[in-house]
């Protein structure tokens, strides 16, 4: 295949521990790659440093050891070629939905005509037509999340990094959002790194599931998920082969939960 977009190479990360002289080792020798157009889910117990990996890919944090390479180039400053969808929607409360979605284009100096067209498309693709002039506080949690995704899609980033984006949503909204995300990513051929702690979500959405261990995190497994698409996100068990795929991930993951003291 060879079409490698993102590579995590022997990533190690230490954080200073409050009140102690030694550092806490959070990540230890993480290696995995993300190919173009692939959906990679990263799963691991709480506090294992999953989100830290995304911050490194975005250039917001430099790893203590190892390097992140984006198309062969080492990430050493803010990486503006990625898109980041955080856990909370983080729309700008002082901007309307349309202004929020427009911002990345504005920052990148895209011409006004093109901006208008792409904003309309992005808002349409997440199903928020008619809410352009609403402020985030006037939108529901799910709608804010859609806005956040539209704001990322609008500038067509090379990779989309998603940090437990659906964690804060209610169960029904989450299923709908999972389904929509699958459709959107298939249509756009987007490359996505998706951090979650929900095994079902990881198996349903991803082409590869990367399983991390507890702190200090090592890579336990990188499991390919070969279920046909589109997958049914509303009734996971209806997908042919879902049980086997879930089992494969769960087998790796269970040890981390059984022995888990830290949550």
């Amino acid at each position: 295949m060879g079409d490698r977009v993102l590579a995590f190479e022997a990533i190690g990360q230490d954080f200073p521990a409050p009140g102690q002289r030694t550092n806490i080792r959070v990540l230890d020798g993480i290696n995995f790659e993300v190919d173009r157009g692939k959906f990679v889910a990263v799963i691991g117990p709480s506090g294992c440093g999953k989100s830290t990996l995304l911050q490194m890919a975005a250039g917001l944090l430099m790893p203590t050891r190892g390097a992140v390479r984006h198309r062969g180039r080492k990430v050493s400053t803010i990486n503006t070629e990625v898109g980041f969808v955080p856990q909370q929607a983080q729309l700008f409360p002082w901007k309307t939905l349309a202004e929020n979605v427009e911002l990345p284009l504005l920052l990148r100096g895209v011409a006004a005509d093109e901006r208008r067209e792409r904003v309309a498309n992005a808002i349409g693709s997440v199903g928020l037509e008619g809410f352009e002039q609403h402020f985030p506080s006037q939108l529901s949690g799910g709608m804010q999340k859609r806005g956040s995704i539209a704001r990322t899609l609008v500038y067509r980033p090379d990779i989309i990094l998603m940090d437990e984006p659906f964690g804060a949503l209610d169960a029904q909204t989450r299923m709908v959002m999972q389904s929509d995300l699958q459709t959107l990513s298939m249509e756009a051929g987007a490359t996505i790194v998706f951090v979650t702690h929900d095994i079902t979500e990881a198996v349903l959405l991803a082409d590869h599931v990367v399983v991390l261990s507890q702190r200090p995190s090592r890579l336990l497994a990188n499991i390919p998920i070969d279920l046909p698409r589109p997958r049914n996100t509303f009734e996971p068990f209806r997908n042919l082969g879902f049980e086997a795929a879930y089992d494969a991930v769960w087998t790796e993951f269970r040890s981390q939960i059984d022995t888990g003291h830290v949550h």
Partner: protein
Amino acid sequence: MTESKPISDIAYDASEGDTTSRRRLSAYAAKALQWLLKLVPGIALLVFWQWASGRLIKEIYVSKPTAVAQRLYELFASGEIYPHLWTTGQELVFGYVIGVAGGVIGGYTLGRSLRLARIFEPYVMAFYGVPKIALAPLFIIWFGIGMGSKIALASIMVFFLVFYNVFAGVRSVDRELVNLTLVMGANQRQLTYHVFLPAAAPFVMLGMRLAIPYSVIGVIVGEFTSSAQGLGLFIHEASSTYDPAGVFAGIVILLGFVTIANFLAGRLERQLLRWRSLSGTGPIDI
């Protein structure tokens, strides 16, 4: 009422026009009643003052509303008050504007730079603790008995209030939001314009509102201490010649200043923070 309505239902049906206008009329009536209720305590106080003056307390101590009104009329009719008004008005505006500008710039700079904040915060903190009123005599020596000393006193009082609010506001900006904007491709200037300034705006407004009465205190104390013209001087002279009506007339004028300033600040706030006032409601039916 509006919250339960579907969002698409902003425009009213033609057939609903009649009930709508009736509803609007009753809304006006309710508003008028509200205003009336608001006025009741004020009127009661004035009536009590009028009645008590000369009965419970000697008029020479407290004057009475009709005398104050009479005095106000004379002051404006004879034009005696205008030079004082003009001087104090200028001092207030300049002192306030300089203080707010300094506070916003200083608070923003220190809020953005952790390094500068570490160096300067203890100093600002120490000066904040100094009772600024105590500086009045010193300021008279430095800036003379003209407007300069009053402007300096007012602006320094305003400065600290605005400074601390803006500083806290800039500090409270969500780090994740900043990172997100950087990843979207913002440079420092864009970050300031799109994230830090709007995020700090509610704090700037709060500081500006709190600072209004303080600018008045600064100016009046300055004029009390030493001046050639101004409302503070007028009030001071009235009180030293046993003229309580004059004192109250001066205070009423100051009240007018503060009310106008508050009104203007409220207008500005609604303009700048429109996104805040809309929170939680469904359709926008303004």
